[in-house]
């Protein structure tokens, strides 16, 4: 099934209404407009040879590459073959129909920018208290965010000179956490919950939030920003738990640090 670009522009149901957007139908660009050329590489679990190359071409064809050519095939051990394939993609992109992504509501800052924002706005270090609460002994999440070692190639919050990190570790009592946060004059409290048996993560997070709201009734001293993280919070909203922010799987320390600057130091994030 080959679709010509021009035909699609004239008749495609997704064609943008504005005439100016007519040129918004795009294809990959190799060295000529509209050539649709792409490259890809992959391995197949079969011995190298003519039959393996035919299999690679079959995959390329099913992926919409026509014509396609195997430019490189190499055995990786007796049972695998690695391929590099070039081909013409037959898919079209109606660029006009691609919405501009919402993005996060705050810019992602470098460690330097975070430090500068804190130094400028607070004139002291920003205090973060972190813990795994309840019976959860899985500190992997909180450690990934807080430990210098960090996560996904990013250093944790301990690495930020202007952030003072208190990592209370695992199985921390909610009362203990509230007391420590008060004693440290915490700006933010980070709680990680990995164990989800019988919705323990939701229960624990609500209990934690309630304790902080009790300790800081409206009008009293400033309540620390409440942040929870874990792989299974995707079914709830922050307001369901009584916290300020939920982070999910794959969150990096920089995202958390940038959020803290955004939420605690309004107007301080460099745009």
């Amino acid at each position, binding site marked *: 099934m080959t679709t010509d670009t021009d035909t699609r522009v004239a008749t495609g149901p997704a064609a943008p209404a504005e005439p100016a957007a007519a040129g918004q139908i795009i294809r990959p660009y190799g060295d000529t407009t509209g050539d649709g050329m792409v490259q890809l590489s992959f391995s197949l679990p079969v011995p190298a040879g003519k039959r393996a190359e035919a299999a690679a071409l079959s995959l390329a064809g099913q992926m919409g590459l026509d014509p396609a050519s195997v430019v490189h095939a190499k055995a990786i051990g007796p049972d695998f073959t690695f391929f590099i394939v070039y081909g013409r993609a037959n898919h079209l992109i109606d660029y006009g129909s691609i919405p501009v992504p919402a993005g996060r509501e705050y810019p992602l800052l470098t460690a330097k920018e975070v430090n500068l924002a804190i130094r400028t706005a607070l004139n002291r270090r920003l205090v973060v208290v972190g813990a795994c609460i309840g019976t959860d002994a899985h500190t992997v999440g909180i450690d*990934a965010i807080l430990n210098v070692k960090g996560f996904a190639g990013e250093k944790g919050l301990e*690495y930020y000179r202007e952030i003072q990190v208190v990592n209370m570790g695992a199985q921390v009592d909610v009362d203990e956490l509230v007391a420590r946060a008060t004693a440290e004059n915490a700006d933010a409290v980070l709680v990680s919950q990995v164990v989800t048996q019988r919705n323990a993560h939701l229960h624990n997070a609500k209990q934690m939030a309630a304790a902080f709201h009790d300790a800081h009734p409206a009008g009293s001293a400033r309540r620390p920003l409440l942040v929870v993280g874990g792989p299974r919070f995707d079914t709830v909203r922050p307001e369901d738990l009584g916290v300020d922010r939920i982070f999910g799987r794959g969150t990096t320390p920089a995202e958390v640090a940038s959020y803290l600057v955004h939420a605690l130091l309004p107007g301080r994030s460099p745009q």
Partner: protein
Amino acid sequence: MKDVKGVAGANGISDTTDGPIGPPKLDLDPAVVRKARLLAARAADPIIELARTHTTVSVERALLRLAGLSGADGEGIPWVNRLTDAVAGQVGLEHGVALPVWDALLAGPHRDLAALAAAATRGEVRFQIPAGGAATAAERAARAAARAGIARIDARRAERDRLLGEVGDPPQPWIYLIVATGDIYEDIPQAQAAAREGADIIAVIRSTGQSLLDYVPEGPTREGYAGTYATQDNFRLMRAALDEVSRELGRYVRLTNYASGLCMPEIATLAGLERLDMMLNDCMYGIIFRDINPRRTFIDQRFSRQIHARAGITINTGEDNYLTTADAVDAAHTVVVSQLLNERFAREAGLADRQLGLGHAFEINPAIPDSFRLELAHAQLVRELFPAAPLKYMPPTKHMTGNIFAGYLLDAFFNLAGVMTGQSIILIGMMTEGIHTPWLSDRDLALENVRYVRDACGRLAEDFVPRPGGLIAERARRVLAESVELLERICDESLLTAIAAGTFGVTRRPPDGGKGLSGVVRRADGYVNPAIDILESEDPHAAHAGGDHGPTGHTEEVPA
């Protein structure tokens, strides 16, 4: 090439010219090098004294493991933890576990340590610190048990020497590859495949956070976070699988794991008992990157290195990590300082220079001018400072981006620097670093990269002679001078203070902060630990001094 023949004189500069390391090229001032070593020794002294006068829960548990206690209770808590905690709770650990445990064992009716541990866990054992004849008897029994464990480690070392002779030792640089699926039964075929693809060393990355567990998990494990738990069973299974593939390939494939964390002494012991060949063992990594208490780390480190020395295990230090947090140019001297400290602590613990896989890395921002020349300067400096050490050179990570094509080029330059400066262990850089754990094809392409560079360069290191007074020689001299300055400062204010001030890895770690401090105990006058007695009173390499194989030779004296 069975062995590195570089011999270091008392000043630490190679005085041979025919080894693979080649003649010195940087014209370093021997007096400055000697001064750096003396300063490192002085900075290390109070720490060594601390380790000599204290014990930790993990040192005590390691003795029990040497004595043959393994297994766990129904909750998965190892018996060594249960027994140590019971002793600590009743009589404290300041005398060590040896006296109260073997006193209780001799008193009966427990048939062995496991039965005693089970009874102690049920609260059925009353421990005491024996005196007089009872103390002598308990100490004798404990010593026999420790002796048996050390004899098992000796036997595993002899077995390694035999295998190296039988199947052959691959030439350096050794290619170091990582597997890390979380499931030991998945790791095994991957490790064997990696060995067939060209790996000389297989490292099994541990589950994230194992370093913070104050116990060693038991049994073969099939679940981990971004790595596989270090357990005695996992060690044994992987070593057996690599023995099999070593025979198939006609070269001995080494196995590496990690001794860092709260259980350094125990994991080192298990590594010795299961014939691992290399262990990550850094004097400060746990402190800086895992927030483990500095005292705990230094005390645990000393015992773990005494075990490594005896087991013929090569340690790998973690200086490369500093450059992932600090700038690789500004902090180059902190790498050298840490290497000198690691060397000092290692030699004091009985490790031979052949066992010092000191770490460093290719992490200079490729956007800065002359970055490759600076990398060469740093790599050659380390090579000349530690001529007999099997240096471990780590590939770029910080400046690897999603642009895999640029990453492949950067890895090629890393391989080139490694070949030009005679590095011993080369961790293979992956162009998909930071994107995902390496695919089969990533590993294959990475090996193709290193093979090309190695074959294309041949003995290029011989022709690489930096111009006297040129940028490379001057840069090396400057890094060495900055290292001496930093060591002087550390000597003035103490190493613990320097660590607290954020000298290494830009991270502040106070001596009383961090995890595991509660497991540190000052030794009482009557402290007994027969394992430490044996390890300290005997030459760890005595039985192997004549061996041709493996990192067993020790040609250099410990400086005063």
